[in-house]
């Protein structure tokens, strides 16, 4: 499995999906990544000593369209005032960063997860989302951490009605991804009606022993307006 974390150079890795080589080759240092028929090769500085590999917010590939991740799942019915914790899976995108502590920059980005886009809301007021379908689990599912991460989602029905929930949407600047033996996120979805809900990422780790990922927008120093959660205004089912 791809070893997430900081690696000293030279670095070589190979498994059934990917071949990574970073180190001196033909009078210069090179980065080479091979996935199937696709090869990415870059010449890097000889003075580079460290490489960081970690999952990043999964909305960048194949091209960044929008800032939201939508996870659809089999409907969950919540009674008024009920709280329920479910486990979903989300697609993983893997970022390869070059640099040193506090000053990493993106070198490569790849993913083994399928890509699909969707529209949440109407064409004039809605938003384009990276769409992913997940089964609903009562406990953390075993997943291939190269392809999928585990999302611990707490559903809170704040309304006075029975609510059917079948989707959740997150904003990129909010995402806090942790990695280790698995890739994980923790979030809360507060449902106010059949139409309105708010999703907020929790800063706490759902699973012990995980490290926090360096997000792509932080590494690229993209200025973003930090929102406190994402307000879903076009339905939850």
């Amino acid at each position, binding site marked *: 499995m791809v070893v997430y974390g900081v690696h000293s150079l030279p670095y070589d890795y190979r498994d059934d999906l990917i071949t990574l080589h970073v180190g001196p080759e033909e009078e210069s240092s090179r980065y080479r990544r091979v996935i199937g028929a696709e090869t990415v090769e870059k010449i890097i500085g000889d003075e580079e000593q460290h490489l960081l590999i970690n999952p990043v917010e999964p909305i960048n590939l*194949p091209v960044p369209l929008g800032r939201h991740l939508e996870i659809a799942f089999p409907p969950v019915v919540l009674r008024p005032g009920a709280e329920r914790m479910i486990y979903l899976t989300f697609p993983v995108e893997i970022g390869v960063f070059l640099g040193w502590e506090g000053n990493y920059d993106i070198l490569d980005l790849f993913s083994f997860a399928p890509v699909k886009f969707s*529209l949440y809301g109407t064409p004039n007021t809605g938003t384009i989302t990276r769409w992913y379908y997940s089964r609903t689990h009562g406990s953390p599912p075993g997943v291939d951490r190269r392809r999928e991460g585990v999302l611990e989602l707490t559903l809170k029905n704040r309304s006075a009605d029975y609510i059917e929930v079948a989707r959740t949407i997150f904003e990129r600047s909010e995402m806090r991804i942790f990695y280790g033996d698995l890739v994980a996120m923790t979030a809360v979805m507060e449902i106010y009606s059949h139409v309105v809900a708010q999703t907020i990422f929790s800063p706490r780790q759902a699973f012990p022993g995980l490290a926090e990922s360096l997000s792509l927008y932080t590494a690229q120093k993209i200025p973003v307006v930090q929102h406190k959660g994402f307000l879903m205004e076009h339905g939850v089912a």
Partner: protein
Amino acid sequence: MIPEALNITINQILELREQHVLGNITYTRVALFVISLVVAFFVAKIVGHYMRKKFGHRMKKDQLKFFIRVVQAVIFIIAIGIAVPSFLDVSFTIILIALAGVLIVVALSSQKVISNFVSGVALHQERVISAGDFVEIGGVSGTVEGIKLFSTLVRTTSGVFVRVPNDQVYGTQVSNYCANCARRYEYTLGIRYQDDTNKAVGLLTAHLEKFPFALKNPHPDVFVSDIDSNSVVIKARVWFPSEWANTRDDISLRTGILPGMKKTLEDSGIELPYTQQVVHFASEPFSVRVLGEKEGEDDVPRRR
């Protein structure tokens, strides 16, 4: 101690203060007039800076720039309106009359320019288009580079730079392909009569489902739209993210999707028909009367 030469200069300046330049206008008044204009200039600058800070994140860059210029021009005009009667001994009525005269002359001589300017203001106000949008304006389609005071600049997909006067933009039909975040495209294919239409619809739906940029929601809509003389016509209506679709022109969008749809059908034995016409002859033998034969000579027409 002030040096004598300098003392003379200061005295000369002090005397000059009260000297008349024109009529009752003294050098002091001229100086005050100039100072007031300089102050107005700096006030306009400060207001522009404040507007940039206040509205920078709320308005698009080109719109903000346009409005800052308008506000700065207004500040300058007000300053002139106050300074001229105060320091140059010209009554406000005369200024208004002069201004009206100038405006009439300008309006008559440059109707087109004013029309373009006003249209530019209206375009900014209505926010129909803005810089970066992919638009079609009266047959010109491309990305808006900017809306200037008198014209809108468009870069077409073929890389041509087009300047469209603002009054033309305002007076014609404008299609903005960026106003909504998703756009729908329609693809048409024909299959043979003997092919299974339900199977074809299912195959095309599944193919479009796999295409990452064909939106999951709204779902691709595939249906039999017509039965024409050569084929059963199947249409696919697919929604794409505008941001993605606008980076491609219509031709590349069609050439990128249609071959995949055709291959999907052909791989399953469903063929696209050639343009053809099947002519059926009646089962009864038909008769042809041979011209030139004498009528009544033979009641039964001869067969040829």
